[in-house]
């Protein structure tokens, strides 16, 4: 991944695209003495032209959409994106309101189709709002220091009991005779 070019420090630009400010204050909390992310070499800059990484918070509202596109395309390559909070990851509780585009995935769809822009590596930090430690963990996953713990799981039932009249009338006897694991044959 091209983000590995940055060995030590990342310069971060923070963009609020319609958030309630809960996630913004947690992003600022990461720079206060208890968590102090500057010891990891991360600095907050004021212009996207100086930045490597852009931090999005908030579901992208219609009013801020052109501004977000301009700020996003102003960051020079190679770049990365951190989506902080449940509003940025999937739209949150506002995902289908009339004034909201709906999170980073919908934003990428617009960028791919209308502007033909390549999608950079992205890290998603769910939470409402995520703890400052969770945001530090997200940046560590982006840099490759730590491995991600959360994976997709899919469960299917193997064998099921056959439903007959006899079984269902004497359900208590059936429940006592078999263990719970055998009835709900799972893995």
């Amino acid at each position, binding site marked *: 991944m091209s983000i590995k070019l940055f060995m030590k420090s990342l310069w971060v630009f923070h963009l609020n695209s319609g958030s*309630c400010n809960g996630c913004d204050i*947690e992003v600022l909390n990461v720079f206060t003495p208890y968590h102090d992310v500057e010891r990891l070499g991360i600095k907050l800059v004021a212009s996207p032209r100086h930045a490597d990484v852009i931090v999005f918070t908030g579901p992208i509202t219609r*009013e801020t959409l052109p501004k977000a596109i301009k700020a996003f395309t102003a960051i020079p390559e190679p770049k990365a994106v951190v989506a902080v909070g449940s509003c940025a990851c999937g739209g949150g509780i506002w995902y289908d*309101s009339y004034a909201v585009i709906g999170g980073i995935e919908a934003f990428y769809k617009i960028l791919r189709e209308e502007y033909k822009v390549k999608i950079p590596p992205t890290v998603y930090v769910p939470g409402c709002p995520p703890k400052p430690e969770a945001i530090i963990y997200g940046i560590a996953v982006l840099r490759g220091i730590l491995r991600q713990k959360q994976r997709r799981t899919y469960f299917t039932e193997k064998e099921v009991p056959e439903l007959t009249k006899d079984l269902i009338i004497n359900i208590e006897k059936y429940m006592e005779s078999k263990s719970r694991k055998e009835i709900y044959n799972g893995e």
Partner: protein
Amino acid sequence: MHISTTKILDSLSKYGKIEKVHENTYFVEVSADKVREVSEILHWKLGGHFSVTVGSDERPINGYFKVYHVFLMDKQKLSIIVHVKVNPVVPKLPSITPIIPGANWHEREVHDFFGIFFEDHPNLERLILPYDWPKGVYPLRKDVSIRGLRSKLLKNNAESEGKRKAEEEGYIVPIGPYHPALHEPEYFELYVDGEKIVDAKYKGFHVHRGIEKVAEEKLTINQIPFIAERICGICGYTHNVAYCQAVENAAGIEVPLRAKYIRSILLEIERIHSHLLWFGVLFHLLGFDTGFMMTWLIREKIMDLAEVLTGNRKNYGLNLVGGVRRDINSEKIEFSLKTLNYVETKLRSVLDKMLKLKEVISRTKNIGLLNRNEAKKLSVVGPVARASGIDTDVRKHHPYAAYSEVEFKVPVYDEGDVYSRALVRYDEVFESINILKQLLKNIPKGNIMADEVKIPEYRKGLGLTEAPRGENVHLVITGRDNKIYRWRPRAPSYNNIPSTLIMLKGENLADAPAIIASIDPCFSCTDHLVIIDIKRNIKRRIRLKELARRRQC
């Protein structure tokens, strides 16, 4: 001179029928030509103040649009709501803005969402909806649905229109050493002549997410507290409590006393951490970063306390209509008292000295003046009003939750500058710690949820709370099928922001960040200023933090 309740109700009864909705709340129906007279009497002569205007589409119920004006009378502990029927075919109404300038934005919002035209309004322009919204589509009317709006408007290439408009108006103006690209759209436009500010304009509302439509169409009555908490990132719990109180008042549900104590405890914890956040922001904008780091260090202990009590640092998720969901035990009470002692000793030793520094005093005294008459005209609320000599506090004058069981003082100062607003908030932090100690020691035993929660349809209710920024008003009309018919949350910054335009005239450019931060708008660190030099005709864009850094004198 104290005017009694019966005298107020007698003088109003000749304008229309009076209906008592719940304790201390009266609805008065007047005709359209008498609205201005009644508003003038209530705001200027009988000692009350204007709070909010709410529009509502009641054509399915009784065939009319309705407009509600809410007035609060502090000395008599009353709320009076004046409502008017509006013709559905040609919706028109006389405006009350010429008499009460504070109603300017409220009437513009009703015009945006419902299409009601207010006669004699000074500038009835678009306030909240995005710039590319088509004319003639009013989102909050009942014959418009969310799905219809979303499919029709998003297909209309809002994105490419936005691109075209951004290139036309020249959003990126790279001049000199200032930063070229955008962080957020413009908030304040300052017209300067050299270093002095001559005029100011405000454009905002880019955070409009359509909460009222989502709550009315999609969510059930018990799911709305969760969306109400996410209105604001600092004072979300007050919105939660105000909504629950409005529904409980409308349906006549009695909340048990232990639940009221738990709600008050969390409300005061929120007030302390919000004021400490404000001190940090003010010190940062004055260039005093040590103060910023020290106050946010003390604030972390309060966030840890909230996490122990409720499970999350913000968005406590604790309220349902009728009570609270989780209880607190004696271990948690001991932990809270220990934390509060630590916070109090630390604050008394360090915050006091920071406010006595020569540099801080010289940059905040006699700056950003707002005298008492202007404050009353614009109906400002909260610490901004208390620093200009108006004694108003919802916890004393319209008691709710467990505030009638504790004793506390309300600080009022007369000068009306940035320094007195800081002193008001400083006093309020210690009063909150005092209230918390009383609540934690005297909490009674009992249930935390009401026994029966039944909500009849089409009832009206009003919920009032005191947020850290001022008074919070929610008006609710219940509907059928476990849904709400109309909900209007009004945050206190809505009434306070127009007052900055008066405070900024005649001041130096270097003082602008501190003045804008002193009313505590919901997040001033990422605000944007546009400075227009009228003599040389140059327009420059600069972030508030950069201005503070470059102009530290």
